[in-house]
């Protein structure tokens, strides 16, 4: 079998139609959209059309979309932008303990700037409790940020219920929807959010493009100062080809999400992988919520092995997955998400995340299961922890 790519949370291939839509904006239509002559205003018009397409995908108004360089920048702008804009009202923000680093580190940065941050604990599935959020909100709280779905364990948070708590308390609510926009239907009014981050990389658009949605009358302190781009909220000449890519990917995602067939097929592949692992690989744990989770997301921890070794071994057989955590993969530290959901350190080291989309096929799942069983068995045969366990 050729390569099997099951790391769509890290990056998705850019669709051919998306590439074709982008190409004219590298050479033929290269003008700066801020210029006043016709060549530039033509490009400005195209940028505004893409804004409308992205807005339409999430049921927002185009005026509420700011293009950014990534989901991480969108998260930074939401958190720091609101905190600094509301500084006179209060200096407290709340995020969950399992947020992406762009949220966690923005909160930690604000702590250095004199703000206070609360990191809300989650349950064993990674769910944030609306009751706990209610208790954590103080009179000086200005922002709550809870991710829509966790990229490492796939759990989808009860965003609407959490938004109701924030509305009742008069606190702004942001969600990092990088893992969900383009993968499941996402509408800002259904979620009840004031701000929402999305990224091109997880929805078939190129890397280097993201967007922040903000509800009307939201004040945001810009992070990048300069010109008039993005209505003065984010300076810097627009990355027009990438913006066109995001616009086209948004249209394609809306079409794809309109058909339930794809979603069902992805869920079936995910379920097959999960039951295969549960049946054939002992001492494994399926992490995240069993039902409230992303359709193509399957995450496991295998006892007595290291996730990075497993990823490496699978990649030698042409299978690409992820440990799910930059901490685990690059910094040799236990994933904060797995710690937060109570996975013991020894188990958390053996983390692996498979993220499938509509480009995957069911034969690939069979192949992955076979190779995964072999790799786990082989790694355990070298593992002193495993040997101790067997002896005991």
């Amino acid at each position, binding site marked *: 079998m050729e390569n099997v790519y099951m790391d769509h949370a890290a990056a998705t291939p850019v669709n051919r139609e998306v590439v074709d839509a982008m190409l004219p904006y590298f050479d033929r239509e290269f003008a700066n959209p801020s210029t006043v002559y016709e060549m530039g205003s033509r490009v400005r018009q195209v940028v505004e059309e893409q804004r409308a397409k992205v807005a339409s995908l999430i049921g927002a108004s185009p005026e509420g979309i700011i293009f950014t360089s990534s989901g991480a920048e969108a998260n930074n702008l939401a958190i720091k932008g609101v905190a*600094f*804009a509301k500084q*006179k009202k209060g200096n407290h923000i709340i995020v969950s303990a399992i947020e992406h680093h762009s949220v966690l580190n923005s909160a930690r940065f604000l702590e250095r700037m004199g703000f206070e941050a609360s990191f809300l604990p989650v349950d064993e599935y990674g769910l944030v409790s609306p009751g706990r959020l209610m208790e954590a909100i103080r009179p000086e709280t200005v922002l709550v940020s809870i991710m829509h779905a966790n990229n490492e364990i796939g759990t989808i948070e009860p965003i609407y219920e959490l938004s109701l708590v924030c509305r009742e308390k008069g606190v702004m609510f942001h969600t990092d929807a990088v893992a969900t926009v383009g993968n499941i239907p996402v509408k800002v009014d259904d979620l009840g959010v004031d701000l929402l981050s999305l990224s091109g990389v997880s929805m078939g658009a190129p890397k280097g493009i993201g967007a922040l949605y903000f509800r009307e009358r939201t*004040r945001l*302190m810009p992070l990048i100062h300069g010109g*008039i781009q993005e*209505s*003065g*909220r984010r300076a810097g000449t627009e990355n027009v080809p990438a913006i066109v890519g995001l616009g086209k990917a948004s249209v394609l995602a809306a079409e794809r999400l309109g058909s339930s067939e794809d979603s069902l097929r992805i869920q079936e592949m995910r379920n097959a992988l999960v039951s295969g692992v549960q049946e054939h690989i002992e001492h494994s744990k399926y992490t995240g919520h069993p039902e409230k989770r992303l359709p193509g997301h399957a995450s496991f921890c295998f006892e007595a092995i290291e996730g990075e070794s497993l990823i490496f071994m699978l990649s030698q057989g042409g299978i690409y997955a992820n440990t799910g955590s930059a901490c685990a993969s690059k910094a040799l530290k236990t994933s904060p998400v797995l710690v937060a959901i109570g996975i013991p350190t020894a188990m958390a080291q053996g983390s692996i995340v498979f993220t499938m989309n509509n480009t995957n096929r069911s034969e690939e799942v069979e192949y992955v299961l076979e190779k995964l069983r072999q790799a786990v068995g082989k790694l355990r045969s070298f593992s002193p922890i495993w040997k101790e366990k067997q002896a005991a």
Partner: protein
Amino acid sequence: MKFVKNQESDETLDLVCRMCPMHLMEPGEKLRCLKKGQVLEILTDYDGALEDIPEWCKKCGQEFLGIEEDEDCYKLYIRKRK
């Protein structure tokens, strides 16, 4: 500097946190949506706007009504004349 108190307005443009030259770009667009005689309220925390907006009104033939200081921003009022 001309000050007003409790000035009523027909539309509000919130430019708090946004910087130069947005305070000179957005009022024109917003005024286009108003009828002659209607009043636009501009909220800004940019000091430069206090001089720039009255000057801009003169150049564009709009009537600058005055400024009111609020807790966290300035409120500037323009009556649409053309």
